[in-house]
């Protein structure tokens, strides 16, 4: 039944995760940073599902579902915050909102 090695799932998951992290670091636009975040979240989902496939469990899939739901909430709130920032500051890049700098 297990024709795909679980290590392959983890390799893909890790690749997607670090790509998401890299996107968060290098992206300037706030919306694209949020999209990179979504990518990283999906990478975690891949790892969960792959582990389920390997171990014959369903908990990973259930957590994947929760993550999808939370990602939806996160996207809604995050985009709302970005829109609010844009409305008050007319900026859309991360280096413009540095009010918390030391």
């Amino acid at each position, binding site marked *: 039944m297990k024709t795909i090695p679980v290590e392959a799932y983890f390799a893909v998951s890790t690749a997607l995760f670090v790509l998401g992290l890299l996107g968060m670091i290098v992206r*300037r636009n706030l919306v694209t940073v949020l999209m990179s975040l979504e990518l990283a979240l999906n990478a975690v989902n891949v790892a969960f599902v792959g582990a389920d496939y390997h171990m014959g469990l369903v908990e990973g899939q259930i957590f994947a579902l929760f993550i999808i739901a939370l990602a939806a909430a996160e996207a809604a709130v995050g985009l709302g915050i970005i829109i609010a920032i844009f409305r008050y500051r007319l900026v859309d890049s991360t280096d413009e909102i540095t009010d918390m700098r030391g």
Partner: protein
Amino acid sequence: MVRLLIFTFFSLWAIVSAIGVITFTNPIYVILWLLSALIAIAGIFFTAGAELVGALQLLIYAVAIAVFYVFVLTAVPWEKAVKKSSHYRTEGVLSFPLILLLYLEIAVVFLLGVTASPEGQLRGLIEKFGNTEVVGSILFSKYFFAFEVVSLVLLIGMIGAVLIGRKENQTYEDDTR
């Protein structure tokens, strides 16, 4: 063998799309690449036998969330913002070795976890009843409370998003005088 081929196809697709997500400058292209990556990931889910998660990935992510992003990108007048380059190149170069290191580290952790992971007790059930039914029965019995909490979080997130994102009336100062 065919499954492996399909998996490899979806994996490559997902990774290429992810690279597109972080490299393209125009946000519209970026959201399209993200959509493509999400669809590819749904395909990966199908290869792992997780039909329910894959279907929900397609329905919620690929349709609802992506469309939400598209709405935001098109409805907000981003052109009023000061135009800047889309990437931090210095940070990208600096963080690349770090990211590679992190990749290796996570891979090692996963490999250690694979060799240590026990065999689950549900495989027989899954093969007998099908994956979706088992997921549903466990989700609505063992994880029912967590499910309720997540739905509450969604509700709160929705209300919060509406509150944060709504247009403020500019009559504030007059009203509170």
